[in-house]
């Protein structure tokens, strides 16, 4: 512990604390007022950083995208105040913030919305993502649950879907989610707890439980979570 004294003198020197560089010119006067006084924030300062998102579209969704393009970019541009562009060559939807964008999370929401559409959800269901904060997307594969080969796999998928999609719709109705079955991939859209419930139900179906059993369990769980106040 060597003493690092710049001067030979033994005087104590008051070390001035270095102030941080601040953009604001005004200085706070702590001693004067009880309440801290914050000046109004300029709109430029709140502007979100310019950012861009790109959402790839799978080939099977090209045509639906073309059909419902207005419904896609409409809410994004009007409500979220974003700039949307479809890159044909890259087959990507590009979303960009604009100076009017007020919400920080708007870009993320828009990206999720387009992604949901790309996965296979309908426009109306995907719109819920924009309007509600707490909705999420979850995707998993049947392989993740259980390694199945050949017929077993198709049977498992069949169990998840049910004849005519009955089981899938039942799960959707009970848990207030939206499910997309794409071959072996399962995508679920909904709130966190509902996604979890739906996921357990689907996993049980994949693992081999009959639908009635799954219904029973699902119902008991859903009744507990359904009551809102």
């Amino acid at each position, binding site marked *: 512990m060597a003493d690092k004294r710049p001067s030979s003198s033994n005087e104590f020197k008051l070390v001035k604390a270095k102030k941080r560089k601040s953009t604001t010119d005004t200085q706070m006067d702590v001693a004067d007022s009880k309440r801290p006084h914050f000046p109004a924030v300029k709109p430029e300062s709140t502007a979100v950083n310019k950012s861009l998102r790109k959402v790839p579209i799978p080939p099977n969704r090209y045509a639906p995208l073309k059909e419902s393009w207005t419904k896609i970019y409409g809410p994004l541009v009007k409500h979220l105040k974003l700039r949307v562009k479809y890159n044909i060559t890259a087959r990507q939807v590009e979303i960009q913030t604009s100076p009017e964008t007020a919400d920080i999370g708007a870009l993320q929401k828009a990206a999720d919305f387009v992604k949901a559409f790309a996965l296979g959800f*309908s426009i*109306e*269901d995907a719109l819920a993502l924009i309007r509600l904060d707490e909705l999420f997307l979850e995707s998993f594969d049947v392989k993740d649950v259980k390694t199945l080969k050949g017929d077993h796999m198709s049977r498992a998928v069949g169990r998840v879907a049910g004849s005519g999609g009955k089981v899938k*719709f*039942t799960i959707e109705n009970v848990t207030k989610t939206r499910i997309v079955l794409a071959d072996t991939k399962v995508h679920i859209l*909904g709130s966190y707890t509902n996604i979890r419930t739906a996921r357990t139900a689907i996993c049980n179906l994949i693992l081999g439980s009959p639908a009635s059993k799954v219904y029973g369990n699902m119902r008991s769980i859903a009744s507990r979570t*359904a*009551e809102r*106040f």
Partner: protein
Amino acid sequence: MTSDDAIFDIQCWSKTFDDPVAFFTPTTDVVICMNKLSADLYEDLVSTFGGCGDNDLPELYVDGLEQEQIYEQIKMIKGFHDSSMKAPALTGEKLAAEAPSSDESEDSGADEEEETEEEESEEEDDSAEESNDSGNVDNSDVKKKKPSATAAGNRWEKSEVDDEFFNIRQMEKFLDDEDAKANQGGGGGDINYFDEVQSDDDDDEDGGLFDGDESGSDDDLKAELENDDGGDGDYDDDGGDDDEKDAKDLKHDDYFGEESEEEEAAASDDDEEEMEEEEVEEDEQPEEDVEVVNDKPWQMRGEATSEARDVNTLLEEAAQFDHATRPQPQITDDFTFNLESIIKRRIQDKAYDSVVRKMKDTRDPLAFKKKIVLDSEKSKLSLNEIYEKEYLKQANKDKEEEEDANHVEIRSMMRSLFSQMDAMSDFSFKPSAPTPEIKVVSNLPAVNMEDVQPVTHSNSQMLAPEEVLEKKDLVAKEEKTKEERKRDHRKKKIRQKVHAQQREKKLVKQAETSDKAKGQLAMQQLEKSSKLPSSSTTIIKDTGEKQSRSSKAFFTQLQENQQTAKEGKKRKLM
């Protein structure tokens, strides 16, 4: 009119009279004959009696008049209705005339003739002859005698019904006297009953009032005739002592079993005998009943035992006593009619009194719990809309439903009205039954509610315990469906698992201290590890065989075990 003419007429009349059938219908010939005859007789009577009184007609007018009118003229003769005129001679002559004459009642003239056969037989013999000759020309002489004879001996003439004690003629006479008395009213007061009976006394002397055997001799007859005359004379002179008559009448009414001494005094010696006879006829009244108060009958004597009264006399009494039982309903026509009318009305109104089956009220509180309906159809609402709806419901849940302004007004008006009415009735009314208040309570644990209210005030405690804890109905194992069975099995497995875990925990805890527990724990762990697919440990159960075995046997056994284990594993993999 000369009698010759009359006889001629009678003769012609007799011809017609032979055939009684002629009298059934009024034929003109007969009528003319009869009228003529009546007129002749009338003239004779008028001439003999010297006037018929106030309404006297010099002659009978028969031309063009009907029978009734002629008869009325005849009736106007004075004394026509005197009973004395209806002499016993009449009855006797009736009997005598019975044989020849069959139907004499047809003509009024015939009646008149018979009635005009007066007891003044001296003067009427001719007329009697004429009338009698109408019936019997041959027997005129006999008839002459017969009226007088029969008149006198009428009482004693035996008839079919007469016997020792009874004479029908006597009875008839008696009855006729009674009738005359009744007709004359008080006029017959002077009927010296006893005078007549005096004649009967003569009979008594012979042997009784009804002794018809002893026919009186002519002397007796004459005496009787004289008596009768006297009686008639008495009749004529009669002014009427009503009191005496009444007293004599009362004599026969023994109401109190008394015979008043006055009456006794009034009665003459002759009366005594008459009374004796009457006593024979009437019920004998004990003459010892001089006292007013007799020995009281048993009905008046308070408690009368069976010895006090005669046999079966109580049955004749209508006794009154309290009935312990309800009187049976008298099934009358009225009763059945009423009952049937009620039945008919009920059937028409269909208002039967049939019993309604009582069902036990099993209102499951769980029934009110919100049930999640499994809808296996694609939902019509998108996710967006579902959340929107939920949000709106939640947002609007806080503010209560605003009632219709009209409803509020109506409710306030009704309240004021009812309060006024209650005040009118002085608040003496039956308060209405408490209506159950319906309140929606959500079945959530209190923790989730995040209520600012203290727990004591919150609604969460209003739930009944069975609403919080769902208790299932007891269902037998056989009644359970497949899913239910599986569900219960799963639950059981979970429970067992929990128990096992708890046991293990306990064991682990105990193993720290006791050696036995340690050993047990180690054994458990070994068993678990051997069950795993990747383990190579095999547990050889202690079969209890003798331990001292040759090493060769031991190793061969070991080898075999291993091989079987391997094969088993192989099968597993497959």
